[in-house]
C-alpha cells in the first residue's frame, strides 16, 4: 500500500509542477523556503521553529536585513520524499534565496541535495548530522543549532561527573540516533550495560522497557525526539521504573512540548542543552517575553533555534546590503554570524558547525503551578565544537 501512496503523491506533484508557470525572482526582497514537520505526533517541534522564525520576522517589521521577507511555509508530513519534493518546488519554481526549517536529520539528508545542487544556502535550525560536520561538509550548509552529538556528549559528561557507573542507551535506528549514542559514549566513563535501537517513529516501548528493567542500569539515557519521547516517558512512569534508575535526557526530550503532555512526573529530571528559557542575556529575555506574549506559551529549544536562524539571515542580508546574488559575500556574512544569539556567545567552526557552551538543566516549578527548565550556572561543556571537524576539507 505505501507504493500506492507514493505513486499517487508523485502524480499529484507532477500535475502541480506542470501547472506552475510563474517564475518570479525579485532582488527587492528576500525569499525563504521553510519546510518542516508541521503535522503528526512530532509536529510541535516544527511548529515551534516556524512560530519563532515568523516572530523574528514580525519583530523586524516584516523584514530581514532591510529587505521585505517572504517566508514560504510548507509541511513535510514527517516524510523524506515529501520534503524532497517541497525543496524542489521552493528552489526551482519559487527561486528562494535560503532554505531552512527541517527538524529531522533523515528528512533533511534526503532533501538537502536539492538545495546544494541548485547552489542554494541551507541553514539548519535543528538537524546537524555528523556526516555534514565531517567528510560531507559543504560551504552552503550551516548548522545553526547544535551538532547532533553535542547534547549527548554533555549528558555523558554529566553522568561521569555524578559518579554514575552503568548506563542503558536507547535511540531510534537512524543517523541522529546513532550519532547521539556515540556522543554519549564519547564522554561517559562507566560501562554500557545495554544498547537498543528502535524503529523511527515507534510509539509503544513496552518491549524495550521490559529489557531495561531486566538490565538494571544506574542511568537510563534515551534519545527520542518529539512524540516518541513523550510516549516513552509516560510509559517509563507507568511501568514504575523511576524508583530503580535515573532517567537522563537530552534537552529536547524534557522541553515544554514534553512537559505539557507528560505532566508532574517530569519534575526533577536532569537534561542537557545549549539554551534555556531562564538565560539572562538581553536577547533571550526579549525573545522569551515576546514569544510568550505572541503565542501564550513558553518557547522550547526548537523555538530558540528558529529565532536564531531568522536572526542569522537578518544579520547576513544586512551585512551584504541586500546583494544576495554575491554568494561568496553572503557566505562570509553568514559565517561571521554577527548577531546576539539567545543562547549567549557562539561562533561557527571551519565546518560551519557551532562552537558554544552546553548546560545541565532541571525541570522545576515555574511558580504558577506549571513546570519549566532551569539551567545550572556553570556550563558542563565550555566552548565545545564537534568531533568531526578535522574530516572537513572545506576551504575557509
Amino acid at each position, binding site marked *: 500500500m505505501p507504493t500506492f501512496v507514493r505513486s499517487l503523491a508523485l502524480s499529484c506533484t507532477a500535475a502541480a509542477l506542470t501547472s506552475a508557470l510563474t517564475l518570479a525572482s525579485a532582488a527587492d526582497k528576500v525569499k525563504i523556503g521553510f519546510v518542516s514537520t508541521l503535522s503528526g505526533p512530532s509536529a510541535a517541534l516544527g511548529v515551534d521553529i516556524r512560530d519563532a522564525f515568523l516572530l523574528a520576522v514580525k519583530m523586524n517589521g516584516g523584514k530581514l536585513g532591510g529587505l521585505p521577507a517572504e517566508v514560504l511555509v510548507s509541511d513535510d508530513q514527517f516524510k523524506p520524499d515529501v520534503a524532497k519534493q517541497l525543496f524542489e518546488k521552493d528552489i526551482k519554481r519559487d527561486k528562494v534565496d535560503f532554505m531552512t526549517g527541517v527538524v529531522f536529520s533523515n528528512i533533511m539528508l534526503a532533501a538537502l541535495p536539492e538545495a546544494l545542487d541548485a547552489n542554494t544556502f541551507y541553514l539548519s535550525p535543528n538537524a546537524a548530522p555528523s556526516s555534514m560536520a565531517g567528510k560531507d561538509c559543504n560551504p552552503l550548509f550551516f548548522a545553526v543549532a547544535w551538532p547532533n552529538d553535542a547534547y549527548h556528549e554533555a549528558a555523558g559528561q554529566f553522568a561521569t561527573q555524578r559518579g554514575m557507573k552503568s548506563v542503558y542507551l536507547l535511540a531510534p535506528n537512524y543517523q541522529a540516533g546513532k550519532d547521539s549514542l556515540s556522543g554519549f559514549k564519547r564522554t561517559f566513563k562507566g560501562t554500557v550495560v545495554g544498547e537498543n535501537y528502535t524503529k523511527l517513529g515507534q510509539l*509503544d516501548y513496552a518491549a524495550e522497557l521490559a529489557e531495561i528493567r531486566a538490565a538494571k542500569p544506574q542511568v537510563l539515557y534515551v534519545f527520542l525526539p518529539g512524540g516518541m519521547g513523550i510516549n516513552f516517558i509516560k510509559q517509563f512512569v*507507568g511501568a514504575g521504573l523511576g524508583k530503580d534508575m535515573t532517567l537522563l535526557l537530552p534537552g529536547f526530550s524534557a522541553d515544554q512540548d514534553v512537559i505539557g503532555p507528560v505532566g508532574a512526573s517530569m519534575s526533577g529530571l536532569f537534561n542537557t542543552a545549549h539554551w534555556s528559557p531562564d538565560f539572562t542575556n538581553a536577547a533571550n529575555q526579549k525573545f522569551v517575553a515576546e514569544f510568550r506574549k505572541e503565542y501564550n506559551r513558553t518557547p522550547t529549544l526548537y523555538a530558540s533555534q528558529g529565532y536564531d536562524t531568522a536572526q542569522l539571515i537578518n544579520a547576513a542580508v544586512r551585512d551584504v546590503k541586500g546583494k544576495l546574488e554575491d554568494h561568496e559575500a553572503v557566505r562570509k556574512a553568514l559565517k561571521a554570524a554577527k548577531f546576539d544569539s539567545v543562547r549567549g556567545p557562539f561562533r561557527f567552526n571551519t565546518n560551519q558547525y557551532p562552537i558554544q557552551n552546553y548546560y545541565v538543566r532541571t525541570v522545576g516549578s515555574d511558580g504558577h503551578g506549571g513546570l519549566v527548565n532551569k539551567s545550572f550556572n556553570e556550563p558542563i561543556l565550555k566552548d565545545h565544537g564537534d568531533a568531526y571537524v578535522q574530516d572537513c576539507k572545506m576551504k575557509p
Partner: protein
Amino acid sequence: MTSVLVLEQALNGLQFGLMLFLLAAGLTLVFGVMDMINLAHGSLYMVGAFLGAWIVGLTGSFLLGIGGAFVGTALFGMALESSLLRPLYARDHLSQVLATFALILILNDGTRMVFGNDLPLSAPEALGGPVELVPGFSYPAYRLVIIGAGLAIAALLYVLVAKTRIGALVRAGASNREMATAMGVDIKRLFTFVFGIGAALCAVAGVLMGPLLAVQVGMGENILILAFVVIVVGGIGSIRGALVGALLVGFVDTFGRTIMQQLFREFLPAQVASAAGPAVASVAIYVFMAAVLAIRPQGLFPARG
C-alpha cells in the same frame, strides 16, 4: 533472560496481540463473509479513536469515550457499508482496493477537517502508575486493563459467533455465501451487521491504544498492514484464526524486538549486533508470515475447508 523479563514480555505480547485481534476480527469477517478487501478498515480504527478522544475531552470519562466510540463508529461503518461499499461487492478485488484506498485518503482529510491533525488522549489518572503483580515485579496498570478488556471482548465475540443464531448466519456466510443465500439468509442485513460489528471493534481498539500510541490522522495505515498479516496467518474468515494469528504476531513482534538483539550480541561484535538486531526485528513478523504461507498457504484456521 530472567523469568521476570519473560513474564513481562509475555504480557506485552498478549496486550499487543489482543489489540491486533480487535482489528483483525472485523477485517477477517468482512473479507471472509463478503469477499471484500476493505483497505479502509484502518480508517475506522482512526475514526473510532478520534471519536473516543473527543468524547473523553468533552466529558472527562474514559468509559463514556469507549462507549460513544463503539456506538458512533458502528453507525458510521453501517452507513458507509450501505451507501458506498455495497455496490462494490459485485466488482473484482482490484476495484475494491482502489475504491477503499480512495476512502482512506478521504477519511484522513475528513478527520483532519473535523478534529484537526491529532487529539490528546491520556489513560485515566488512576491507571497511570504501575501495579505490583509479584513481589519485585510491577506492570503498568493501564496495560493490564487493556489485556482484561481484550480477553473479555474475545470471549463475548466467541459466544456471539459460536452460540447465537446470528453467529451461525455469519459462519454460514463465511464458509459458503451462495449456499447461505439459497437457504434464505438475508445477506444484505447480515453484511451491514457484520460491518458494523467490525467497525465497533476497531473503535474500541483505537480508543484503548490511543493513550499508548497517539490519536492522529493516518494512525490506521501502519496497523492495517499488521492486521492483514494477522488474517493471512490465521486464515481468512475465521475468528479463531484471527485470535491465534493476532497473538502469534504480537508475541513474535515483542520478543523479536528484544531477543533478536540479545541473540546477535552473543555472536557478533556490538557494533554489528546493534545494527543487525533492529533490522531483523522489524521484518520478523513478515518472515513469520512467509513461513506460515510456505507451510500452510490457506492459513492456520481457514474458514473454508
